[in-house]
């Protein structure tokens, strides 16, 4: 993480001879002190109201539970403190473990392919030999403008036997439909939607960081007799590590948060259940079965998981890179 050092006002101002009276100087200095707080105030207020308070509220809610008081028509639900009960039941839920398992399979396909393809395209864009760069760069970036839900809808029709061009080909060859929307094909199908949507964005991030490498680095390597492939592997990839780490974190967070794509494909197939991934389970608990404390506990678990995963990636990257770029 960069720590921007900005030697600030105090020292420099006082060193300059001043014409104004001490009273006015104090007034202005007071202004300088107040200004940064006014500038950050809107962000801080919004941060507190829309991030901090909801997080605290979710944590508080995760320690509550409902108890039925009384019976019959007069009975009502009362919210009481539950300790770690919700966490216990959420973590012991075989559905959740299965959900994380599915998320794991999906992530193992989506994240490496996403980063690998983004890196490959970025290196090819940066390679002197490639042609049609502008067209390819724009075309690969286009899906970023397509909302995830719409992307899932498009691919859903590309998968659906009745409309799929791929299944059309295999059908005419007499091989039948491609089982895009069955198990286990569904994992690859969903991962493909995610890759399609963000590979261009990741490619641009990596590409711009490759463009930032001074060309003397390449010339030195060329003088040593390295070919383009060796330069890519030994010079470009190590120097693009910060961008790769960033895209890795983005895709990991994206994986943990996958929701819109399976939800959109759900009407087209019967292999995606109401609780297929953790976020779908949170939604079900909160809005379909009306079990808010359970949804809150699950949200907290997922948020902690995201923080831990991101921290691990950053730590690994820093260790591998110690003394290097980062």
């Amino acid at each position, binding site marked *: *993480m*960069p720590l*921007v050092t*900005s030697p*600030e*006002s105090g020292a420099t101002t006082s060193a300059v001879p001043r014409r*104004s009276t001490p009273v006015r100087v104090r007034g*202005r200095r007071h202004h300088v002190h107040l*200004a*940064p*707080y006014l*500038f*950050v105030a*809107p*962000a*801080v207020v*919004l*941060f507190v109201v*829309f*991030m*901090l308070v909801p*997080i605290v509220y*979710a944590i508080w809610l995760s320690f509550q539970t409902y108890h039925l008081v009384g019976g019959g028509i007069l009975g009502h639900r009362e919210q009481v403190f539950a300790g770690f009960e919700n966490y216990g039941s959420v973590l012991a839920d075989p559905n959740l473990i299965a959900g994380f398992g599915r998320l794991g399979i999906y992530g193992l396909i989506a994240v490496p392919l996403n980063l690998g393809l983004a890196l*490959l395209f970025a290196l090819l864009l940066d*390679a002197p*030999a490639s*042609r*049609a760069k502008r067209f*390819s760069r724009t075309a*690969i*970036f*286009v899906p*970023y*403008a*397509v*909302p*995830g*839900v*719409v*992307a899932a809808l*498009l691919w859903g*029709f590309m998968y659906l036997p009745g*409309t799929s*061009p791929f299944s*059309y080909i295999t059908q005419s060859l007499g091989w039948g439909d491609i089982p895009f929307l069955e198990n286990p094909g569904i994992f690859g199908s969903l991962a493909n939607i995610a890759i399609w949507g963000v*590979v261009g964005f990741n490619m641009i991030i990596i590409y*711009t*960081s490759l463009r930032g490498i001074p060309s003397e680095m390449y010339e030195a390597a060329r003088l040593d007799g390295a070919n383009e492939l060796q330069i890519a592997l030994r010079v470009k990839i190590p120097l*693009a590590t*910060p*961008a790769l780490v960033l895209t890795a974190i983005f895709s990991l967070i994206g994986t*943990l*948060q996958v929701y819109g794509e399976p939800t959109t494909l759900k009407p087209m197939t019967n292999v995606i259940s109401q609780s297929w991934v953790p*976020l779908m389970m*949170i*939604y079900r608990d*909160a809005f379909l079965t009306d079990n808010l404390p359970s*949804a809150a506990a699950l949200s907290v678990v997922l*948020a902690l998981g995201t*923080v831990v995963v991101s921290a691990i990636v950053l730590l690994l990257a820093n260790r591998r890179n110690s003394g290097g770029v980062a």
Partner: protein
Amino acid sequence: MSAIATRTGPRKKADRGKVLPTVVLLIGAIYCLIPVAWVFVASTKSRSQLFTTFTFTPGDGLVDNLRSLFTYGGGQFGLWALNSVIYAGLGAVLSTFVSTMAGYALAKYEFKGRSVIFYSILGGVLIPGITLAIPQYLLLSQVGLAGGYLSVLLPVIISPFGIYLSRVYAAAAIPSDTLEAARIDGANEWRIFRTISVPLMVPGMVTVFMLQFVGIWNNFLLPFVMLSDQNNYPLTVGLYTLLAKGSGSPALYSLAITGAAVSIIPLIILMLFLQRFWRLDLISGGLKG
């Protein structure tokens, strides 16, 4: 003969060195364009053609499809598009404004609590925005805002990533000496921000605006959680409901496909247009710092 052979030999090799990277790039480009091409072709098909003709054969139902799309539910599609423009446009403008001010202050002033504020907000990058949606919904419904425009608009204004990018950009683009000189000339801090800092930060602001615009436009879960009145839906949630209902009636499949085609045109145009203005190197440069 042999002279030609020796001459074409190395040239062929050099050509192959050029051809392979280009072919791989073009395959990537085709992969990315196929679904987009498909949705435009499919939007020209009538309901019966959709499931019967080869997928890339255009049909003759475009006009009918557009008519039924824009008359569906008394013109709901147009309303959804308008809502998306409002949520994404207004949300991104406000978010850019808030992020720029905060990023500028965090980069260019020393003040008590600066690190605490910066790292707290930065931590927000790691909290899944989606995990926040449910508590946000519960809190907003207690103050009676859930279901309305504000419930989708307000939570997206705070963007930890936008603030982070603005800070990185402000630190790199605004020389402290210039600010100091303006201060000595007696300009107040707001005036310095407006007349010196904002113009220098414009490329960074465009980047933050674009990222936020696309992010809000593509957002599904927050409006899905917050809204219940179909007239307040953005395009993403509206198209989803068409598709979800469509599993019962294929007529809605046609609508969803045509709607998807129409809805991605403006965003692709906007992105192609703004592509040259935004500074995505900011994002990767940020970690290098």
